[in-house]
């Protein structure tokens, strides 16, 4: 207990420091504090380009009500403004709101097609610089008027942005649209070998079962549909991918969650068969290798090897798959079916879009020294991509077949 004696001095220091801190704090006057009821929570943000090249920004601001029961009703306020840049427009928006617009709760960022084609970089900077903005908000591209998309009223959710948020969680699971968060956009826009795919949102009438996004002119209540994706090359949008192409692109990039599809029964029995893809893995191989030396980083042949398992969900055929031979034939058929899809995607990427949306460049980058990639390959990668010979090599197996081995009554 030698220490007992040394440290018995009293300690007004603690009190002093506490008082100083308090004084300092009260003097400062809480500059950054915002009372929560004075905060306008922006739930959805829309950005588009007007016909005359200016930037229009929409904000969907939640209007919280005191009673939680009333929250079911639509309680949001849509505002839009036009400015020369995104920041300019946002600034003007701020002037028109009684509440401080708070961008940390943006659930959905909807970008108009015109703006996307002109380059999303114009919006990226202001949002990445912003300490408030949420990296995990969803990013959509739409060919419909952005204001209309955000203005859609749905019964399922209190505002379009929250609806999109909820919808995205489900849609992305079925892989007809990519899970495009803002952070994916930010992180994948910098390397030429890794291009972002953004989910496409479109307006559709409730009865409109087709995939067309023509936009029915009637005034009947519209619904939002998330399907397909926008392909960006660099920061500029180069074209649309439909739902199947999107799924294939995700499959190739190893980002597929599950994918459901229906295909005709292989062989001559007729009928169709439905699947759920539950596991898949894609490898990008370079059978000829990657050149070193003179033409460092050059590639000519690419094989995309995809393996995986599908579950049978529906069999509408007289063939009940009870023989091993037919099962093998079925597996070949599935592989064939998916391979066709991938071919279609590669075709689209190389010719229609002219852009490496399937991350082959990223695979190259990983395999070559950093300097070679940076100096020799990166700048011309997309040109090189267009001339690649890309061969899909797909092998799928059938996994579970459900609770019944055969149909209760096979469909003829």
């Amino acid at each position: 207990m030698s220490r007992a004696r040394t440290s018995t001095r009293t300690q007004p220091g603690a009190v002093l420091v506490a008082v100083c801190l308090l004084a300092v704090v009260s003097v400062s006057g809480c500059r950054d504090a915002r009372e929560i009821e004075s905060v306008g929570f922006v739930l959805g943000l829309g950005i588009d380009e007007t016909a005359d090249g200016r930037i229009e920004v929409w904000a969907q601001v939640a209007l919280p009500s005191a009673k939680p029961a009333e929250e079911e009703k639509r309680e949001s306020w849509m505002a839009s403004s036009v400015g020369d840049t995104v920041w300019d427009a946002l600034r003007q928006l701020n002037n028109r709101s009684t509440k401080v617009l708070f961008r940390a709760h943006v659930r959905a960022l909807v970008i108009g097609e015109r703006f996307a084609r002109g380059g999303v970089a114009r919006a990226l900077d202001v949002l990445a610089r912003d300490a408030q903005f949420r990296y995990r908000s969803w990013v959509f591209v739409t060919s419909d008027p952005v204001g209309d998309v955000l203005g859609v009223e749905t019964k399922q959710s209190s505002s379009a942005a929250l609806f999109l948020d909820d919808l995205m969680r489900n849609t992305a699971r079925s892989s007809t649209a990519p899970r495009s968060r803002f952070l994916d956009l930010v992180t994948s826009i910098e390397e030429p070998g890794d291009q972002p795919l953004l989910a496409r949102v479109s307006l559709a009438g409730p009865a409109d079962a087709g995939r067309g996004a023509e936009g029915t002119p009637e005034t009947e209540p519209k619904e939002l549909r998330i399907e397909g994706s926008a392909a960006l090359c660099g920061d500029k949008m180069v074209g649309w991918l439909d739902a199947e192409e999107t799924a294939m692109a995700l499959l190739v990039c190893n980002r597929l969650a599950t994918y459901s599809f229906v295909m005709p029964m292989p062989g001559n029995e007729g009928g169709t068969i439905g699947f759920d893809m539950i596991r898949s893995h894609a490898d990008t191989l370079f059978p000829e290798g990657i050149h070193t030396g003179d033409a460092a980083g050059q590639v000519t042949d690419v094989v995309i090897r995809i393996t995986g398992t599908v579950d049978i969900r529906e069999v509408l055929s007289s063939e009940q798959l009870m023989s091993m031979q037919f099962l093998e034939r079925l597996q070949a058929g599935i592989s064939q079916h998916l391979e066709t899809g991938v071919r279609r995607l590669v075709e689209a990427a190389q010719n229609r879009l002219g852009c490496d949306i399937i991350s082959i460049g990223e695979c190259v980058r990983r395999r070559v020294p950093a300097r070679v990639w940076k100096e020799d390959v990166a700048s011309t990668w997309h040109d090189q991509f267009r001339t690649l010979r890309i061969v899909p090599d797909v092998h799928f197996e059938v996994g579970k077949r459900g609770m019944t081995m055969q149909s209760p009554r096979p469909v003829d």
Partner: protein
Amino acid sequence: MIVFATGFLAAARILVPVAGTAAWMAALIGGAIGLGIGGLAGMLAGRFPGHSLVRMAERIFGAPLGKLIGLTFAAYCTVVLGLGSRQSVLAMWIAFLQTTPPVLISAVFYALVIYAAYLGIGAIARVSLIFFSLVVVSLVVLTALAVPVAAPGRLLPIVGNGLGPLIRAGFLAASYAGESIVVLAFLRHLKDKRGASRAMATGVAVGMVVMAVATGFGVMMLGVRGISRVTFPVLETARMVGFGQFLERAEILFLALWFSAALLKLATVFYASITSIADVLGLRDYRPLVIPYALLGTALSLIPESVLETFDYLDVFVKYSVWYAIALPVVLLLGAVVLGRRGGDDHVQSKDEH
């Protein structure tokens, strides 16, 4: 008694441009160098039990030269202090308290550092242990949350920009680990020398592993270009992660925790510095020095006028400080061996203080 590297807040941005995708390995190399430095410091302390740094230097090289070495040490500490505090305050200011005057944040910061230094190393050490474990826990949580977002492919190619830059970045990282030499100033307070060196080694090792993990995950999430671009890479990764719908944007929690950890580290440095100065001046109690020195530190931390300038200073410091951290124990040890000096027992009684 663990000195930990809290420099990881900005470290990634310094390491990544040099080493590219291999920056995380650079952090590990830095840790190894830091362990070496720590080992030297431990040998030195073993040779001169119960001596503070200044006393050691005086014993080896005589009073004038020894005092000079003591002063360089204090200067080193001061620079660490100034840069470190500026950085922490900036992070707070830029990311969260945008309209609060930074002077206010500095004031709170320094009030706490002064308070900590006034209470002495015992209190700092005890509290550091708590916060250190909290920081480690926070980083583990962060890492766990980062796994779904991270793309391990971004870490390839494995050697990054090549071996040369990797080693160069290793030395940069070592300058963070090198800060562990401040322990020299109060090794004499430790009862158990072996335990102390082990604790120090653990501290450096854990600190640098943490830095490596943070850098690695930063690259996995943001990519090399992203990391080089953003202001505070680790903070940015913290912004990206989320768990379900309720645990998002928790970066302020992490930042506040790291802020406290940085504060404790700087309080340690502060304490090391003023006790050395007190030794040089021959004062028995360091407490009268606390306030003047704090003013000096504040002034120093206000020298860089802008964010860019701060990072500029930081780059320079990181580039050269490691050599000081290596040189100091080496010179002292060499001097001791060549001149054949050993520590007597004349200061042993001071060991019992803590």
